[in-house]
């Protein structure tokens, strides 16, 4: 393993310290809880928080900023944050308008946030929890009952963040989360494995000529292990799975995301986007907004996921709203 690491145990805190060092104007940290929050939280607006294992950057702590998350905490690589960190995240930004907790559907994350939300409520904080489950690949998985939450998470954060910034009530922001989650679908593919710094070895084995179709963002198995195919063929597998699931139909306006899983260069993501855009055209979809880059990764896994969100005027306006985060690409 070759990585930029000092001591693997300090990897997550040191990465967070770097984010703060680079974004001192926007963000501050509470290192004890591996938590990053916005400076100058507006008490009249709904706060939006999230937190899960590290290794998915820029999700989730790098998605904190005006128009996006108000705060986020993270656990060790690929492991849920502890309950006290989740509770502190809620408390650190709790506003009169209330707190929306966005949780990607994984058992570990859900249980930690369930407990933290209950404790926060007992302290008189208004909290609503919302679960994101956009991955069409598998119904249940290694770490979930039900579908997994993956890159579609970005659209929930973005739309809810914009609504909260515009002064929407907690109930209204929750309704936005529901609308996005009901209309967003994702599927991913892995070409290589990934190496958690503390583990030092690849998390699963995969042959040079193989790919994992429907892979999870922690390297969990997907639908099938097959031989490598061309970019056009792979994109069609992902697109068909996503398109048929909602389904997206002729005349729909969509946001289309090609998300890199960490180890695939931007140029390859655009090759995939080009194929996906052609397929969307064949279906009769209008791509109103596109996103090509890294939004939700699995450390340095080579691979990508394809996400589509069916838009209406309200969602389109929310996606158009300005936002500023640590990675400055949102």
């Amino acid at each position, binding site marked *: 393993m070759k990585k930029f690491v000092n001591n693997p145990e300090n990897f997550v805190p040191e990465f967070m310290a770097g984010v703060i060092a680079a974004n001192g104007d926007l963000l501050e940290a509470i290192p004890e809880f591996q938590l990053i929050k916005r400076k100058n939280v507006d008490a009249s607006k709904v706060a939006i928080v999230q937190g899960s294992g590290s290794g998915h950057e820029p999700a989730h702590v790098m998605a904190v900023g005006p128009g996006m998350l108000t705060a986020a905490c993270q656990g060790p690589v690929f492991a849920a944050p*502890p*309950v*006290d960190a989740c509770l502190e995240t809620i408390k650190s930004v709790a506003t009169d308008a209330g707190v929306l907790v966005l949780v990607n559907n994984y*058992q570990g994350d859900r*249980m*930690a946030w*369930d*407990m933290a939300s*209950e*404790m926060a409520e*007992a302290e008189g904080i208004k909290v609503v929890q919302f679960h994101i489950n956009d991955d069409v690949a598998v119904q249940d998985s290694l770490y979930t009952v039900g579908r997994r939450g993956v890159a579609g998470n970005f659209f929930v954060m973005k739309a809810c963040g914009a609504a909260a910034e515009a002064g929407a009530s907690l109930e209204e922001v929750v309704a936005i989360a529901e609308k996005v989650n009901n209309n967003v679908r994702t599927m991913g593919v892995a070409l290589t494995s990934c190496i958690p710094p503390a583990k030092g070895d690849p998390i699963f084995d995969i042959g040079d000529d193989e790919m994992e179709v429907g892979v999870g963002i922690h390297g969990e198995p997907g639908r099938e292990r097959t031989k490598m195919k061309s970019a056009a063929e792979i994109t069609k597998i992902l697109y068909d799975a996503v398109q048929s699931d909602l389904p997206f139909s002729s005349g729909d306006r969509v946001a289309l995301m090609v998300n890199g899983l960490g180890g695939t260069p931007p140029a390859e993501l655009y090759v995939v986007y080009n194929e996906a855009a052609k397929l969307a055209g064949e279906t009769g979809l209008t791509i109103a907004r596109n996103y090509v880059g890294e939004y939700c990764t699995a450390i340095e896994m080579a691979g990508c996921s394809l996400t589509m969100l069916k838009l209406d005027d309200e969602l389109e306006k929310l996606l158009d709203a300005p936002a500023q985060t640590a990675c400055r690409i949102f």
Partner: protein
Amino acid sequence: MSTLTIDQIVEAIDITCDTVIRNEKYFSDLDGLAGDGDFGTSLATGFKVIKAELPEIDKSAVGAMLLKISMICSKHVGGSSGPIWGTGFMRGGMVAKGLEEVNYQQLTDMVGSAIEGIVARGGAKRGDKTLLDALWPIHEKMQEMDGSDLGAVLAAVTAEADKAIDATRSSVAHRGRASQVGERSANTPDPGIVGIATILYDWCKHYGVDYTPNAAELNR
């Protein structure tokens, strides 16, 4: 009606730590029969931290103390046991919020609330072969009794947990990791139920309450 002071509750938790730590390998071996074999280690890892931090924990109120224990559980007990046990302590702590001692009715309500929380967290039903199959009859027995003799209550609830070991032994697990092996979980005791029974039996021994166990897992 008897009451328990915060110091008495701390003592019971300290004994519980000893029980869990001493049985680390045994509970994991039981879990290995149908689950993933980490139950004993997961639990012991967390209870070692509780044992170490117990002397320094804020003991101004039962509720605050139990919430702290809950935090340690959820942070240091691995797997799904962390949130499950953490929720139990959290819910108990919420009932005992601000109390410097708890009476029998409050103690019974703490157990009831802990059960409600664990059900909400894990979604288990009666007969799913989880630790709740020990906790439900314990709570019902507590509700039946008047609590004037806490020793008698302890013997009675230990008997309920003891019975639960054999009552669920032949059934197939429907929740937790053991549910994934289907029929293979039949004819193995549930480690969570054995854990509860072992803790209570050790309390009996510590407090000088006579109890003769039936299940093989308590007669080792």
